[in-house]
């Protein structure tokens, strides 16, 4: 792991500390959007927090998505409730730090190609409205006014004004800075190997940088590696990576002010077919380039982009916005979503291992759900009742036999 040159005193400041402390009350594993959100929230309550990161902040899933925070793609129920709570918390963060984290309330548009799809998204919209979301139904001239460059073949759409976007790496950096300023420590280059078997009464973690004592809890915020971490800590958690591609274009003049995606996106999140699925997601960024998604597949950790998927994403984007035909693709990147068998996050104490608290499994919704997850973790640690029920996210649901068999992919 890289160490700063000893002569550069500017790097001796605590914010880049490489020193592993002897112990901490709460140890958080993973400095992504969730881990840093938890750290920032806990230090504000005066907790003694140490954040362990084996690589660099936001090096995993948090830097490989699009920074979306959506109500639109959440099924009514615990997921939608958590998303709406989390968005309300993001609005608070956004009002303090909008420029720094590029927080935008851009709105999301879900487009349908035919009558059947249109009926489906409207029905979903009805259910989401019943849970408190604001949904507009658009077609014809209204739709053209909201989204002028949309393909004329689109039959109709639903629009969610509460969908937001943020620059996720800046958001992680902002949360990390708040955590460090509040007295939290971050140790880079520390990978957790397991529990320390020193034989003393104290509970300690063994890491690649040494061991540290743990007071109250270890928070598993390791994203797609959360399953591996759980194994090392003597538990089992069916969180596996679900790969996605994002295409990045050259900077262009405005094509869309919103996040626009196809109706079958939600199905692509929840279905279990083998192979890969692509469902178009199109949006612009503050700096000019457009981000085009999306794909889902279980291919382990393969880091070679799939040419067929790149082709499909490009084709679907042009279908939604014909004006994109001559826009140039600049690069593609891959991300690995932390995914559970039922596509719901895992937030709660481990069923078997004392002191282990999971905050992971957010699939493609981690940026959005990070705030409410951090709030939930605080409540769990303080033994107070969280605003959103965590029952559906309980890790114990995977401890029952046979519950994780129907989705594993080789």
């Amino acid at each position, binding site marked *: 792991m890289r160490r700063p040159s000893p002569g550069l005193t500017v790097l001796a400041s605590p914010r880049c500390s490489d020193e592993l402390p002897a112990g901490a009350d709460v140890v958080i594993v993973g400095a992504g959007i969730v881990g840093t959100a938890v750290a920032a929230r806990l230090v504000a309550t005066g907790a003694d927090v140490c954040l362990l990161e084996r690589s660099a902040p936001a090096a995993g899933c948090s830097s490989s998505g699009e920074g979306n925070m959506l109500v639109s793609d959440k099924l009514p129920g615990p997921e939608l409730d958590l998303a709406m709570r989390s968005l309300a918390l993001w609005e608070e963060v956004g009002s303090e730090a909008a420029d720094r984290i590029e927080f935008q309330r851009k709105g999301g548009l879900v487009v349908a190609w035919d009558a059947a799809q249109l009926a489906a998204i409207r029905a979903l919209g009805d259910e989401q409205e019943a849970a408190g979301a604001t949904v507009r139904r658009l077609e014809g001239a209204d739709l053209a006014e909201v989204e002028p460059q949309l393909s004329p073949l689109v039959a109709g759409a639903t629009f969610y004004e509460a969908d937001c976007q943020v620059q996720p790496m800046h958001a992680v950096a902002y949360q990390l800075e708040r955590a460090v300023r509040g007295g939290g420590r971050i140790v880079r280059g520390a990978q957790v190997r397991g529990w320390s078997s020193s034989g003393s009464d104290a509970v300690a973690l063994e890491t690649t940088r040494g061991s540290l004592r743990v007071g109250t809890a270890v928070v598993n915020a390791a994203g797609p590696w959360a399953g591996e971490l759980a194994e090392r800590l003597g538990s089992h958690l069916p969180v596996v990576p679900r790969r996605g591609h994002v295409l990045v274009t*050259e900077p*262009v003049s405005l094509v869309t002010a919103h996040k626009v995606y196809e109706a079958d996106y939600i199905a692509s999140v929840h279905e279990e077919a083998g192979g890969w699925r692509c469902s178009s997601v199109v949006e612009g960024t503050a700096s000019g380039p457009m981000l085009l998604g999306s794909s889902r597949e279980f291919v382990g950790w393969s880091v070679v982009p799939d040419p067929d998927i790149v082709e499909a*994403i490009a084709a679907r984007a042009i279908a939604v916005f014909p004006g994109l035909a001559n826009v140039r693709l600049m690069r593609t990147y891959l991300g690995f979503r932390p995914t559970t068998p039922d596509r719901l996050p895992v937030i709660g104490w481990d069923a078997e291992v004392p002191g282990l608290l999971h905050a992971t499994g957010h699939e493609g919704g981690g940026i959005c759900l990070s705030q409410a997850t951090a709030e939930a973790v605080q409540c769990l640690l303080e033994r107070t009742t969280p605003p959103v029920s965590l029952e559906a996210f309980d890790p114990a649901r995977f401890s029952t036999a046979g519950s994780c068999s129907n989705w594993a992919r080789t």
Partner: protein
Amino acid sequence: MTPPTIRFSFDGRPLQASPGASVASALVANGLRSWRRTRTLGAARGLLCGIGTCFDCLVDVGTQRAVRACVTALRDGDSVRTSASRGSGGTDPCPPAPAGTAADVLRGAVLVVGGGPAGLAAADAAVGCGVSVVLVDSAARLGGQLLRQPSLDATGDVRPLSRGLAVRYPRLAHAPGVTVATGTGIWQLRAGGGGVVGWLEDGRRIETTAMVLASGATELVAPFPGWDLPGVVSAGAAQTFIKAHGELVGRRVLVAGSGPFLFPVAASLARTGAKVVSVVEALSARRLASLAGALARHPAKATEAAAYVTAVVRHGVPVRTGRVVARCEPGRDGTVGKAVVVPNREADGAGGRQDRRAHVYDVDAVCTSFGFVPRLELARQLGLAEEVRPGQLFSAVACDVTQATSVAGVFAAGEVTGIEGGEVAALEGTVAGAAAAAYCLGRDPRDGESGGGRLDASRDRRMVMARNFAACLNRAYPIAVPLGLIGDETVVCRCEDVRAGAIRSAFATGAASAREVRNATRCGMGYCQGRTCGPLVQLMTAASFPASASLVGDLQQRPVAIPVALQAVARGSRTIGDRSGGTGS
């Protein structure tokens, strides 16, 4: 018969250009140095690398926005306009679709990527072994940089293989089974046990059994305050302008930087009529003196070197060693007007009795180069193993004696395997081409029969000699970028206008790799995707974190090797116009 003068307009002004001009050479010939405003700072930009790698020279031509002026041929009637550094899209009129269709597949036994000395030799050798070849180069004509050809022959011929190269490589000109694709680049490449597939910018695909990667190198242009003024270009850009278009990048030119390449460029400029005010070499005279022994052992190289030095001396060009350009200042029109040259404090031997004065030169162009860096975009897509060759600083593709890489069926030759010059490149190309042919024919590449056994011994001797000289050259000219000259206000990432201060702040707040620098500052996220700034950021990172000093630059991961229109990417997709989402397995 020579085609007539080209008539075109720039921002509405009617202008003329010589036949064969690129948009860039036409604009420069008409006294224009900038034709673009950057997106972030609105800074004026024009030519930089001259060979299509840096994306600094973006210009709008007709319905095409933000195309590289240096590689875009100028056509009669073209409406050229200042670019706002944005692509077409949205409500812009859509340019015509790329020419190729999904059905256009170029097939052959061996794909040769790059038509420079290494690629030409590889293609020639493969054809000589009796296999079919697909030869691709993104420039309009074959030749690469070292063998850069005029953009059109004296007869007006613009075909890929110039008359001069056809004489040199008659097999490529006349043998059947040679498919040449120029003016289009490969944006995606895959190879493995099952063969090679390449995707071209124009929408066509390539399918072969084996390949030779000869993608060459890019120039290392080091920043200094004012390096982003229009008129400051790479040494290679000056050379390319002369060879391809017979044009000068300026009339009063300073040639500065480090490396043997400064001399041929200065000589070309002087012979073509420019006033070369000085050649400024960053390394000390003592370092260069170590070359004397090497030159004595390689008479042909000594003769070549003497010719450059003679030309420089004959034209009265002063040569200054141990000096660097501290800054450039704008002239009245905002393009480069002055260059300030100072002793190089970071050079060994810069002390003592050295003349410590600053020299100020009036110039209208500065040509700068600090050496070369292998172009590894496609190598990284293929997952080829890399190494840092002894005496070199940057990573290159690792090969064995048959030029085989770590991936079966993929061979590599030339500067992409290490900076060793044109002679080594051509020799490696011959070996690689023969080895790729042998692979296709199911023979062992080490079997001398495949490559023409009788020639092997003499070629091996020449290879040893050439490599030996290259090693001496690399030892005498280590990469010598004076990082201390880069002020906090100096732009490092030209595409996104990211200044050195922002990069240093990123280091101070925890960034410890080029990737983290990119995520924190957007450095490397622009059109060139880190091709220009990547080596610089690597050097800055290594200076701040010496223990990590790995210059296998992670800013150069490149799933997309060059920008490519989405409709060319989507070409062949079953789902165009289809209302269902894409699926596959």
